[in-house]
């Protein structure tokens, strides 16, 4: 048999794929989605808390957020999943019974939150201080100003990076197979791997790969679309008749020469 047809049969054996497909659709896909979506929600929530703690003036909030981020961003995802899944198993046993699934979600969330926290923090810190001043001048407290004015703008600016993180999360969800899930809890990768192990043919794994691409490729395009929308929506390009004003504004910022130059116009 020539190498090319060996390769073809190893990866494109339609019978193997057909055999794996029903389980992928009914078990693998729902589980991958449940793992990824739950971890995305919990990870984003924790990430927002980390971001706000990370910019807090209180060092007792800032430092733990920093250490947490360093640790969970610095460890390999597989190591974290094993550490949480195995290390917290006795605790999980009391809460959920002998079910590693919630611990898998928790581990994925903790990893995602470290990255998402940094993404959100960067976004929040990119919002001009004048926005906070504007909100405070209206009478909003610091918390209200952050919640209503600063965070919505900051998060908007980093949406593409956030979606990228969700893509990473979908892929990382395959790592929970380390925790020894029962048959009904297996996600796409595990089902592909099990079929590959029983049949000795890798086609089911390739099918799992195709499922991942079906989930992630639209998201990557969504990132590009969001990014384009955000860039085109920027004030500097969207202003109808005010392009020159931005420059005038720059010149009128405090600074001796600029201030004196602007005093020239006192006509009313």
């Amino acid at each position, binding site marked *: 048999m020539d190498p090319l047809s060996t390769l073809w049969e190893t990866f494109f054996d339609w019978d193997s794929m057909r055999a794996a497909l029903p389980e992928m659709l009914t078990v693998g896909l729902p589980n991958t989605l449940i793992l990824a979506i739950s971890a995305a929600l919990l990870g984003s929530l924790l990430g927002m808390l980390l971001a706000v703690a990370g910019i807090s003036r209180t060092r007792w909030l800032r430092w733990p957020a920093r250490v947490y981020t360093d640790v969970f961003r610095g460890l390999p995802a597989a190591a974290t999943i094993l550490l949480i899944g195995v290390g917290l198993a006795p605790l999980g046993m009391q809460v959920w019974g002998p079910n590693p699934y919630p611990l898998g979600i928790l581990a994925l969330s903790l990893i995602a939150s470290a990255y998402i926290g940094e993404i959100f923090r960067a976004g929040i810190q990119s919002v001009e201080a004048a926005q906070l001043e504007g909100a405070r001048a209206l009478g909003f407290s610091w918390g209200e100003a952050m919640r209503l004015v600063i965070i*919505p703008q900051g998060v908007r600016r980093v949406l593409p990076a956030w979606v990228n993180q969700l893509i990473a999360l979908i892929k990382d969800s395959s790592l929970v197979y380390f925790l020894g899930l029962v048959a009904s809890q297996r996600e796409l990768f595990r089902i592909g791997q099990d079929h590959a192990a029983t049949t000795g043919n890798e086609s089911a794994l390739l099918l799992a790969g195709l499922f991942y691409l079906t989930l992630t490729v639209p998201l990557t395009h969504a990132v590009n679309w969001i990014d384009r929308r955000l860039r085109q929506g920027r004030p500097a390009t969207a202003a109808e008749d005010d392009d020159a004003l931005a420059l005038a504004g720059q010149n009128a*910022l405090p600074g001796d020469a600029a*201030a004196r130059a602007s005093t020239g116009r006192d006509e009313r």
Partner: protein
Amino acid sequence: MSTATGTTTPVSLSVRDVHLAFGANRVLRGASLDVGRGGTACVIGPSGSGKSTLLRTINRLIEPDRGDVLLDGRSVLGDDPDALRQRIGMVFQQFNLFPHMTVLRNITLALRRLKRLGEDEAAQVARAQLERVGLAGKADARPAHLSGGQQQRVAIARALALQPQVMLFDEATSALDPELVKGVLGIMAELSAGGMTMVVVTHEMGFAREVADTVAFMDGGVVLESGEPAAIFERPQHPRLRRFLSEVL
């Protein structure tokens, strides 16, 4: 009680011997300013003289190290700063509108969240203020789609919607093209004529001369000279004021 301008009863404002230092940099060194009820004070002076900082100590965006700020003779330094800022409107050089919200929502946000107005009532107040600044048709636009002059007028409408007793203007026209300055100054002059107590930090000497009741010249963190516009511009006493005027007029 409402006045012709649709705002609450104007109050008098006194800034007494306000000191402020950022580390070794003493920005305010005993600045004082008095504005009568419904009066307009224009604060002029070179860049770095502490004008904008003085303005921010009035609504306590910056807390002074020493000194006092009084509204109608009563110190406001013990008040809740957030509540105080609802009574003192402020307009900034760079407008500071919220770019992710429509013009209408820029105005209704504080009305709904702070004044607890319903959606319809807040929108009604906002539209009335937009009409007042000549932008009734721009309620649904985003700030980025407005000219600088229009953005500043929205910022004024946003501050006025909260019915402040005092308005602070921090170089409100410095970021505008010359042809857009006039419209914004016109609204400020109208507001002044309507009896709003105002402190206006400005480089617009024509505005100071014609609209202000008091002109205060600041340099080095203190008000070196203040008085009626005619006195300040025609008979300046302090040598530094004379030098400043010779440079800007």
